């Protein structure tokens, strides 16, 4: 399997992605934001960090970078794209993912371990996960996911909500929501 990790100026989790992908057997290539074409890949990853300093709005400048058109094209042809952290913010800004990200509920950067619950473990992406409650790490200032009621309904109907914030027992509640995301949403397909 081949993968590509896009490096924007200000990306700072690009090395982590490279290490992780190689660990899972990917042949990974690092792609510079000023390039126009993505090398042939089965998976494209937008890593975390502060692309272009996250000035203006998180991810907004990266969503207008040279490489991004080919990412959008790749996605529209059915290619798999993962956006983590700042990468997720960029995907939102490109419109490939519905919704918006607001400042965290308590207006602070949060760096800590949290739990998420995988909504459906029978779909093709999650069917090899052994547990449905996972302990993951977050580090963001603008991770408060928001979308319209219509979009929410459509995502629910189409099983597009991937993971939601929960506590260590899998309980999904206001208390287990670190940043104020609507419906505790932590990730979407």
């Amino acid at each position, binding site marked *: 399997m081949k993968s590509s990790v896009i490096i924007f*100026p*200000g990306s*700072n*989790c690009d*090395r*982590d992605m490279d*290490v992780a992908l190689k660990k899972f057997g990917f042949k990974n290539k690092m792609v510079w934001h000023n390039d126009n074409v993505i090398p042939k890949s089965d998976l494209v990853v937008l890593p*975390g*960090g*502060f692309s*272009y*300093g*996250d*000035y203006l709005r998180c991810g907004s400048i990266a969503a207008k970078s040279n490489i991004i058109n080919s990412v959008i094209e790749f996605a529209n042809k059915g290619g798999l794209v993962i956006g983590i952290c700042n990468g997720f913010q960029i995907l939102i800004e490109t419109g490939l993912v519905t919704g918006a990200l607001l400042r965290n509920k308590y207006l*602070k*950067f*949060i*760096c*800590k371990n949290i739990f998420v619950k995988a909504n459906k473990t029978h779909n093709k992406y999650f069917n090899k996960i052994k547990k449905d409650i996972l302990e993951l*790490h977050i*580090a963001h*200032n603008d991770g408060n996911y928001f979308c319209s009621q219509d979009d929410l309904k459509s995502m629910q109907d189409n099983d597009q909500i991937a993971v939601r914030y929960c506590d260590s027992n899998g309980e999904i509640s206001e208390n287990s929501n670190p940043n104020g995301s609507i419906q505790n949403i932590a990730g979407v397909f």
Partner: protein
Amino acid sequence: MVLKKDEYKKICELLKRNPNLTELGIFSAMWNEHCSYKSSKKHLKKLNTKGKKVIQGPGENAGVIDIGDDDAIVFKIESHNHPSFIEPYQGAATGVGGILRDVFTMGARPIANLNSIHFGSPSNKKTKSLLRGVVQGIGGYGNCIGVPTIAGQTSFDESYNGNILVNAMTLGLVKKDRIFYSKAAGLNKPVIYVGSKTGRDGIHGASMASAKFDDKIEEKKPTVQVGDPFTEKLLLEACLELMRDDSIIAIQDMGAAGLTSSSVEMASKGKLGIELHLDKVPCREENMSPYEIMLSESQERMLIVLENGKEKKAKEIFDKWNLDFSVIGKTTNSKNIELYFEKNKVANIPIDLLSEEAPEYDRKWKKSKLPQKIKFTKKDFKNLKIIDVLKKILASPNVCSKEWIWEQYDHTVMGDTIQKPGGDAGVVRVHGSEKAIAATVDSSASYCYAHPLSGGKQIVCETWRNLICVGAEPIAITNCLNFGNPEKPENMGEFVECVEGLNEASKYLNFPVVSGNVSFYNETKDKGIKPTPTIGGVGLIKNYKDMITMDLKEIGNIILVVGKTEGHLDQSIFAKEVLNEKKGPPPEINLFNEKNNGETILKLIKDKLIRSAHDVSLGGIMTGIAKMCIKGKKGINFYKYKGLIDKFEFFFSEDQGRYIIEVKKENIDKVKKILDKNSNHYDLIGEIIEGNISINDEPTLSVDKLADYNKDWLNKFMVN
């Protein structure tokens, strides 16, 4: 400008003429306390800076130590106190930016940040907003550039009401043969300016940091620099890319006193002259004068002396990263700094006058006496319950959990953090290897204030202990010496004796000082801070799997305290918070025991006989164990106390050189034997149980409740 009258006279004599405005600005910047170390130099010369593992001691951008396999760690701590009080966000942010640059200037990729921050009394009306601003500034910069903040220290004391302290430390990783220095070499080599454009921010920042505050402090805002972590990230990547081959002869970041000190230092170290054409300096604002260009402290800029013919290749790299690049001058054999602007020569000063001829003072200083010991009696402890005292101490500002702070720092970016803030030391793996680096930062202002000599020793020992507690072999330290006005013999005496104390401990423990900085004039309206030397320590864990943490691990295991508990309560949190007694001497330091206990603990860790460890510091044994319980979500059943001293003295005294360790029952005899053989005193304290703390005849208390007491104070303080 902060030049004194006699200093101006000396300049005229040395130059044999009157300086022009630009030249005067340059002298003022180079001769101020911050750049010249004129009050401290005499005493800093005595520091223990050598050791088998020291590759570079003080005098460069940062110190460098050998960690084996051709790897080296570059590290330093630096203060940004004055700017942070005037403008907390930018002051703290650029403090982090400055220290990061000092480290990557030497060719190292930064792998960890730490900080030590000190605020006024919680009841002071400025404290909350200063704390919020500083924490956001540190986070804003470090998070964005993508370097984890792995440890730190926060304290509150009314002596910081008018002068907060912000000390930032960075560690970087480099291959031993790829270290870059700031010594220029060779004639007619191009001098390159790279990074951000020069603006009018931070002009005379270094001079401001060498003056005390008065009522007109708001007017000083323009002397605070403005940080841009995104540009710094680009500068970091661009510099490291250029450093892959041998294009660079010398490199120096433009920190305090900007272009002035960077150009003078590089030339001075190389015993060369330097010629700069200031029209070629990329400027952010129009009509900047030579004076402003030379003294601007705009951030994220570097000065490089390049090999001839490498300009094109270097420019390509900086273009790729969208950074300014300009050849602004060359090295010469004149031994002068010569500045040109619009074809006129605007300054011409022999470099020696700016560095070697800079004033050096032998300031008057007063020796402090050891305060008389307070005689505590049974009567003082009457009506007290251990559990109540513990609750009060855990919720006191200087002991409470600082999670509210470090949760705002990205401590995991880069993916190598294996011990996060809140423990004895932060630990990061050396990427792709089995090695790990531990780092900690410590200071004890009230001990230093009570008796500077003992205080100075104590901090070095505490740093050493904190590294040992995670299983690291301590290697070297960096110091940030925050003091009041050196022109006052009391303040100068505090400086001299703290340095003497820290030097004594550093020598005895073979724990050399490899870098540091001095911040004087932390004084507002004639009132200075308590002496606050801050020590950053670095240690090596050869295999990261041998690292240990302080959280209690397993029910049934035994808790021991290694090191003798004498019952010294003076200057302890217990005396101050509970008995309201602020006088008396700090705990004594016995360097023999310190070293002996530390080395045995390290041996026990290496032999895998210790499950968790924590040093005994603020709040004594009881506070230390409570913190281990909270972290491990486990309780303890204390054995019945049978010692000679009062139980309050036993549980809350702050005698030094002690460790709390958790040992499996089956290993207890083995551990006792090793401790006996090495003549280490120890006491058996209790046994780990489920989530309660149970002390003989006192009511039990759940660890969850205790955790809330510990965590709530700061959360509530910051929210309300």
